[in-house]
């Protein structure tokens, strides 16, 4: 396995250390950068994110990364969005005020019904339409969010259940979104990250 290098997009929103450690433990090389020149050299991109959608989008604009990321998606370079990072991939979000996202995957981010929150470990139900996550079907992953993706079923590749069914993972071509935190899901998280990245990079 040629040493795969992952680029974590650093736009100042969210903690890179855990994602970085997780990827290194799996055996990948990691670069954390906001500089497109650096990010061009890596085999796959990861977009982390903690905090609110609007603040994150303005941070991406400030660092002039929106067009860059959209361009990489167009080039079908592997891109994985984690938690808020996943939500940024979609068309728009209603968190606080309606805000346009990177629009790489059609759909919107809306609040849970009656302002509910989804915190804790929940089992992943893979849709078998896309074999990418199948090895992790039935495994538990750590969720920590109060907004969810709503969009065309074709982009949903995994769901989870809390009061109602909601989207846990989306995919469109080489762009993947994970609502949960694989870097905080112990062994199951590492296995999933490894499978996804190897699949996307080898494709």
């Amino acid at each position, binding site marked *: 396995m040629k040493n795969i290098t992952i680029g974590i997009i650093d736009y100042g929103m969210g903690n890179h250390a855990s994602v970085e450690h997780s990827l290194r433990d799996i055996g990948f090389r990691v670069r954390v950068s906001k500089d497109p020149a650096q990010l061009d050299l890596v085999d796959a991109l990861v977009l982390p994110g*903690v905090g609110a959608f609007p603040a994150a989008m303005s941070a991406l604009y400030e660092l002039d990364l929106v067009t860059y990321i959209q361009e990489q998606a167009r080039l079908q370079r592997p891109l994985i969005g984690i938690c808020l990072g996943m939500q940024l991939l979609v068309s728009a979000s209603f968190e606080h005020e309606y805000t346009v996202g990177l629009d790489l995957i059609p759909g919107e981010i809306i609040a849970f019904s009656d302002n509910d929150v989804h915190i804790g470990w929940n089992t992943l139900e893979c849709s078998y339409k896309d074999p990418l996550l199948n090895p992790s079907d039935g495994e538990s992953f750590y969720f920590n*969010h109060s907004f969810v993706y709503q969009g065309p079923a074709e982009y949903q590749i995994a769901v989870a259940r809390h009061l109602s069914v909601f989207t846990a993972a989306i995919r469109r071509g080489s762009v993947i979104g994970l609502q949960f935190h694989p870097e905080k899901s112990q062994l199951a998280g590492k296995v999933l990250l490894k499978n996804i990245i190897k699949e996307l990079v080898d494709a």
Partner: protein
Amino acid sequence: MLKKRLIGVVTVKNGWAVQSFGYRKYLPLGKPECLVENFDRWGADEILVQVIDRSLTERGPDFELLEKLGRLGLGTPLIYGGGIRSVEDGMKVIQSGADRLIVDALLHDDLSVVNSLGVRLGKQAIIASLPMSIGADGLELYNYRTKSKSHISEALTNVIEQGLISEILLTDWKNEGYPVSFDKTLVELFPFQKIPLITFGGISNVKQMKTLFARSNIAAVAVGNFLNYREHSIQEFKDTMASATLRSPSYATENSLQADV
């Protein structure tokens, strides 16, 4: 199906992980990062690090400790509490690796900061710590800095009812650290029955845990002192409980001495 959580608690005082008894007596345990790393390997569902002498001395969060914990590369979600005074403090705590933060002193000092943190980070990241006890006329909130008891303020009640915080850490502070002593009536009498609770303080056996987990509004049970007396105590609790509501126990295997494992 969303699982219930067993949280490993590391209480820190003067830079040392300690056992705590009734919020007033302490015994040394070791280096916080050693306990945290161990809970991570044991497969705790979340790890709560509470540094109990930061607000007392106005030194703000223990970023040095958070930085040390960051270097461990934890695979387990981390909750940090201790010394969060402002929105900047809270944001920096999350930036330095904590997944969620917990506030106690701030509930008494400045509720507006709690609100804005909820807005900036999303309320799922915010936990309110309410050490409670039962007084002459019902439930009392304990202020550990002034060692005084009072009723939950109107303002705090609004913040909770407006859903600006995701969970409440309900601590039976009087029985904290003593085996099989958590007072269930605290949960029954607790005014906010809709908000998910993390129960802590004197929970040491599976029987207690089962009864607590049976209540729908209890999302997690936290254990502190009692995780330090046995090897694999988190897995032991999960094995004995053998309940589908919890994630099953995991036993790490890096280099086995056994044949063909």
